């Protein structure tokens, strides 16, 4: 549906509009609609998948974390879930998990141990995966 709207804007509306500036604005709205079309189907899916992945990472990492406050935070977050599937709720959960991921990343970078290197490698894998989940088909990179 959104793809159709975007195509309509580009093919039928833009040529009929002047001045050029407004053509550009409609072109931007069409491009945004095309992104919405792509996100519409997958938005909840990748958030749920990522939140689950982060919780697993925290669950696996927590026993090796010597910082009590951080370990408690990781344990608490690994026990949360995504009952509310609205995008706003999933995004809020995702933000809380990603904020803790930054803390965990800082922590393992500062600690010399095999566990820390293992966790760090897992974090980098997760970060790469996070960009695959969000990647748009129109992205230049």
């Amino acid at each position, binding site marked *: 549906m959104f793809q159709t709207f975007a195509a309509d804007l580009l093919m039928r509306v833009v040529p009929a509009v002047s001045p050029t500036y407004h053509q550009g604005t409609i072109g931007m709205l069409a491009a945004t609609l095309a992104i919405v079309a792509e996100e519409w189907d997958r938005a909840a899916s990748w958030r749920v998948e990522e939140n689950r992945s982060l919780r697993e990472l925290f669950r696996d990492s927590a026993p090796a974390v010597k910082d009590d406050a951080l370990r408690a935070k990781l344990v608490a977050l690994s026990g949360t879930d995504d009952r509310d599937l609205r995008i706003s709720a999933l995004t809020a959960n995702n933000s809380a998990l990603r904020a803790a991921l930054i803390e965990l990343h800082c922590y393992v970078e500062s600690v010399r141990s095999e566990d820390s290197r293992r966790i760090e490698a897992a974090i980098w894998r997760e970060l790469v995966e996070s960009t695959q989940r969000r990647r*748009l088909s129109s992205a230049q990179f």
Partner: protein
Amino acid sequence: MASLEESLAEYIRLKLPDARDVLVDQLEQISGGASRQTYSFRAAWVEGGNRRERRLILRRDPAASLIDTDRKIEFSAYRAFFKTMVPVPEVLWLEEDSRHLGSPFFIAVEMSGLQSSPARILMEPYAAHHQKIAEQKWTIMGEIAKQDPARLGLVGTMEWVEPDRCWQRELGYWENVLDSDELIPQPIMRAAIRWLRANPPPPAQKISVVHGDFRTGNFLYDEQGKIHGILDWEMAHLGDPLEDLGWSLNRVWCWAHDDRRGGLVPREEAIRIWEKASGLKAAPAAIHWWELFASVKGQGIWVSSAHAWETGENKDPILVLSAWSLMNSQDRAALELMGRLA
């Protein structure tokens, strides 16, 4: 309430006291970067019994923009480079008093009949001239690097920085932008910032004017592949000339969806042209640092544009489109530079 045309005519009367019958017409808003409202218009007047006419550009501050910048710096950069080998439009008047047009602005001479679109540069007849455009693009960038900021009269207008402090100032600035404007946590950029702080670049070889947003999309070119004007100097500052080179190599400017930087030539070719023109070296470790920094800076811009849109400061669709379409690519660019993208 006076129309924008009437207000512009009144302003031109103030700036040209000998002009009579000043008329402004053919006013049209155009795309001119996301940080200022840009209009094209025709000004006509009678002076000394002769009718004069010029096509001009108005750059006016919006309420909030993609990039918060000082219009005086942008105006001064245009004026300073106008008589150098760096092609720029001629600027006429800077007005910082909001009473004339509702917000500060400046007026420049229009360069007509040219393209700036990064999408169009991929099409014929422009596509046949990519090597020629690239030679000029990175040669002009090298020429900016070669110029002495003091001789240009820009020291003072632009804040001085010592060669060994360039990286800290710029990184600190964009980290602060992320701190204040991010709507969601940015674990990849935070990791990049920690790496950049732990692995500082060598001191700048010299202090140069840094354009700040020199990329395909911010210069005017014609059908023969000649570059006529470098635009959008709103982020210009003094600093390490490698900053401009690193920014121009940013993966998010690979408009052709391949490895050609700026949609034009491979990375190594761009560096070769720049080194030859500037007389400076882009040592691998140093340019790598500035390329990764460019990812942090880019993400700072996309994050702040998303913030401006989300908070209602500015509802221009370019803010949400640029943020949505570029943030993830910028993260991937940083991952690649940190050797994490297989």
